[in-house]
């Protein structure tokens, strides 16, 4: 483990009546693989939304590499190197898989804009195509590159989201239930891909998952949320064996 990357301290968020998060703290070190689990409505997605800037927490602080993220909009946080995927898949309409990656690459390199659209043309350069090719290969979408993303299955769609997030060359990646809606085979592939990303690229990953074997296989540490409260955190094996976690989440009433 190296230095801290993301530090969220006592983050709280309520939606009118519902307390979605109360005093949740989460720390992620560089290159670390962390999981967040908890039953439906525990506030996991809300936590991601607060960290990635989609929602503004009512209280609490979030710092990234020691820098406060409080005033930064989601797009600014993305440019610092925080990428994410969505539980309810969010693809761009009218674009092919490759377009998704190119757009992400352009957003990162900030190449293009009015002037170059008008006077230099906007065809992808060979370096851009190469970068996209590498990521497509990694997630296994090479042969789907020219298909409209909307026409893909949910599983492929999740891969497109992952590839798009990876194009941002993130230091920290939030994944919201990447295996939901995938069959067993696809889930296994997804696990393998995430392992590669984490090992080879040293990307820190925070994973929300309901698939316990996947969490056990990938995550070094696990946080457990229940009704907006952090009820346990620590090394994955310890947490999954914890009595309270089993009652609250795993439905083990014995």
């Amino acid at each position: 483990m190296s230095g801290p990357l993301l530090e969220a301290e006592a983050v709280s968020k309520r939606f009118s009546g519902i307390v979605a998060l109360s005093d949740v703290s989460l720390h992620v070190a560089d290159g670390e693989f962390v999981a967040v689990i908890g039953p439906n409505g525990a506030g996991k997605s809300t936590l991601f939304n607060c960290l990635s800037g989609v929602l503004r927490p009512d209280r609490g602080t979030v710092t990234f590499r020691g820098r406060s993220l409080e005033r930064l909009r989601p797009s600014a946080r993305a440019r610092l190197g925080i990428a994410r995927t969505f539980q309810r898949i969010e693809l761009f309409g009218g674009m092919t898989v490759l377009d998704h990656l190119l757009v992400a690459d352009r957003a990162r390199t900030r190449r293009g804009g009015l002037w170059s659209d008008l006077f230099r043309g906007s065809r992808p350069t060979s370096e851009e195509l190469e970068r996209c090719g590498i990521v497509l290969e990694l997630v296994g979408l090479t042969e789907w590159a020219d298909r409209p993303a909307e026409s893909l299955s949910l599983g492929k769609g999740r891969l497109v989201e992952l590839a798009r997030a990876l194009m941002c060359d993130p230091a920290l990646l939030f994944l919201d239930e990447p295996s939901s809606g995938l069959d067993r085979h696809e889930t296994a592939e997804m696990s393998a891909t995430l392992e590669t990303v984490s090992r080879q690229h040293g990307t820190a990953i925070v994973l929300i998952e309901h698939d316990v074997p996947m969490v056990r296989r990938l995550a070094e540490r696990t946080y457990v949320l229940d009704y907006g409260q952090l009820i346990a955190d620590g090394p994955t094996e310890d947490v999954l064996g914890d009595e309270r976690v089993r009652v609250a989440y795993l439905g083990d009433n014995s």
Partner: protein
Amino acid sequence: METLLENAVRGIPTGCVFALLAVGLVLTYKTSGVFNLAFGAQAYASAAVFYVVRKDHEWPLLWAALLAVVVVGPAIGLLLERVLFRYLRTAGSMAKLVTSLGLLIAIPEVVKLVLGDESRKNPPPLWYVMRTDEWLWPRNTSIVLDAGQIATIAATVTVVVALVLLFRFSSLGLRMRAVVESPRMAELNGVDSERVSMTSWMLSSLLAGLAGVLLAPLFASLNPLDLFTLLVAALAATVFGGLTSIPLTFAGGLLLGVLQAVLAGSLPTDSILATGLRPALPFLVLFLLLLFRPGLRSTREVTDPLATVEAPPPAPVALVRPHWMTVGTRAFGAVVVALGLAACWFLLDGYWLGLVISGIILGIIMMSLIVVVGMGGMLSLCQAALAAIGAFGTAQLVAATGMSVLGAIVIGAVIAAGVGALLAVPVVRLDGVYLALATLAFALMFESIFVPLSWVSGGAVPLSVPRPLIGPIDLADDRWFLLFAVLCAAAVSAVVIRLREGTTGRFLQALQTSDVAAASIGISGRRSRVVAFTVAAAIAGFGGGLMATYVGQANYQSSFPYLIGLVWVALLVSAGARSVQAAVLSGLFFFLFPAILTRLFTFPGNWVESNPDAPSWVASALGAIQPNWAQSVAFILFGIGAITYAKHPEGSIEAQTATSVGAIVRWVERRRGDAGTGPSDPVPPPSPEVTDAPPLAGTGRPTADSGSPG
């Protein structure tokens, strides 16, 4: 302080007028999810019926009122719900707004066709006694309320109380809201959403009818534009109530009326503030409220959790079209344009040539809508005002400096871009409906504050703009001007296409289809939208400058009134908000279609004159067709076009192109397949996998194979 209080009291009747309209709008929005811009048009329909039966047929007051308010009002609502809005329940708020825009244009024209187009002076009141100040009000104050005002106050208060009670205590109110939130979910819970939705529309349309009949006597003559402008003024109260709270809306309306009266009393009467600001106050308040009312900016559209059950929209043509097809269509387009140009050059007389030129220039202005609406996803209702800024800029520069007209047009476009950028910075933070309202407020502020100023428009007499000379070519000749306009349109389309296919267009597309995902990869929505808005403003300003040059003067009333701007939007979105051919075609259509209709409508009359021995019923039937119907019929069709938007959000021309492109591609492939020589299939085969609807939520429990840990 005596006078301040008196002024304030004097504002109450006007405030109630605002409140009545605003509450009606809130009711429609709450119970149907439609921000019904056509509310004023519905009010106009009832008022016109009331006028006709009361004044022309001299019905007794009670029967006339019952017919106009209780019968005609809800009947219109029921009709709209049955043929239109029931299919739009799960549509996005943009589709609903565009539909109401179409209705706003079509309904008054239908009324004119049915009831006749004569001007209706002095609309009759909904009460008998005209003045009450003698018997109701102490004589020593200067406050005078007439019976009309008292009736308005009473009606407004009654309506507000009744609605508040309805939503508080009856289950109907609750069911109405459930149906708006999620019709399918409501059905699953046993609510008959059809019935509820019909009731909602009848109720809110009853209110529209009441408002129309009640408010018509405020104006010297009955006309739909006045009612619509009054409605936009009332929008400030609607926004004050957050589009949902009826009591707050009522309070907002009252406050607005009082504020206006107090301002009127305290400002010197001859200052620009009094003449310009007072009529514009509601629009100014609306604009400021939209920008600063807390809670509005962050309001995301409530999305129906079951809406994803709908099939996704078809992929745009560009995505399924092979490259050779793109090249082919472009070449085909160039040939069509060249042939059309030649035909216009040699065949058309001055009148038709003029219409074609105007149409092409309007096509350029329409291209600004492509950038802002089609690419940017922002329903801007102020492109006409931005075009007018370009026109005024051109005219003022030529008048003040005597510079070349071409240079002035370009600088005019730059000025429009500057204004557009200033407007965009606050406005692009707003979502869908709110952005549309803010730009509408801007258009009306521009009209009532800036257009009268002499440094903007040159005062009462429009500034003239000469035609330019380019080398030896004098553009005073309409044929050369046509060529010039076509070249300008080609240049602007090249710009628009490059942006659309380029990074700018891709970013905007990403933002439009998923703004959270776009933000998650670092695309700044605000920046991209401001850029789109500014470019669109520049294009609109450029088109406006050209229009002024062509017409010979920068004339706001005849070229750029805000209502015409709304018609343009309706026309473009129904033709296809993303394609340049749709822009040019709808520009041409706007000018040529009414003219062609006028021609057509003269035939029956002429035939009757030249055939005096025709049977009398034929003669009278044909003779009834008036050439002056043409404008109404054209506008009704424009409006109906916008109504089809919900079915074909990609636009009719785009849909048509998609069909023909698909047919050609299939045909070519079959030919190649027969010959057995062609390269392998250039189009990806239809996807074997159908898009799965995303699940509503995760599984909640560990997946089955996870077992119990331990």
